[in-house]
């Protein structure tokens, strides 16, 4: 199973998470987002970039509760809440956004 990014193939698992984290590019993120029926806006990118930075620092994807808290701290309460994040990523912010961000499937969270 693989995504096709302008002719290059990027392997993913049965749920769509990419196998090799270093394969990630912005173009790939757009491809994954399209499969997830998510149209990437600046607001989506804010979350995806945030997740990538978080993973880079801690080697783990944040649980939804942690993501909400951290978003609140960085971008303020209007973005640091469940409703906002679910509007951007209806199938679960952590799970769907993590997939687009090229991170492994978060353990035990939505």
């Amino acid at each position, binding site marked *: 199973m693989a995504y096709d990014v302008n002719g290059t193939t990027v392997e993913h698992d049965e749920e769509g998470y990419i196998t090799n984290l270093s394969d990630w590019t912005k173009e790939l993120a757009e491809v994954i987002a399209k499969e997830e029926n998510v149209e990437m806006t600046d607001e989506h990118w804010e979350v995806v970039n945030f997740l990538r930075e978080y993973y880079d620092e*801690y*080697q783990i994807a944040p*649980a939804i509760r942690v993501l909400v808290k951290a978003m609140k701290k960085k971008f303020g309460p209007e973005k640091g809440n469940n409703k906002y994040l679910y509007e951007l990523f209806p199938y679960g912010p952590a799970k769907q956004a993590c997939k687009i961000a090229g991170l492994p499937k978060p*353990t*035990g*969270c939505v």
Partner: protein
Amino acid sequence: MSEGVKKFLYVNRKAPHGTIYALEALEVVLIGAAFEQDVELAFLDDGVFQLVKGWDTKDLGSKNFAPTYMALGDFEVTKVFVEKESLDERGLTADDLMELMYEDEDDDWAEKPSIRIVSREEMARIMAANDVILSF
């Protein structure tokens, strides 16, 4: 046992790399914390080696999970007990350990250290005071 939220104590007694216990424990702790359990961590015996700062497994080709301990505070795991006797026996002091911090929501998000160095006797009392003990 008390009703409602149970107190979980995760006991870590193994060094970080010889076995998979340390990484598995950390993942279980973070999953548990995501579900808002009341979680405390204990490090004793070789478990104290997990918290030594500056380790890096890059050259071993295995996942370098040292930075993940720093995320514990974000996951609201704020009570990390480390046994003094275990440190002493291994030639370590509190200064050799990672600086695990958390932000106290009830105190204007002030950064506070999560690690508390406790005696063997206190450690025994901590074990006795929890509802569920998970050993790694």
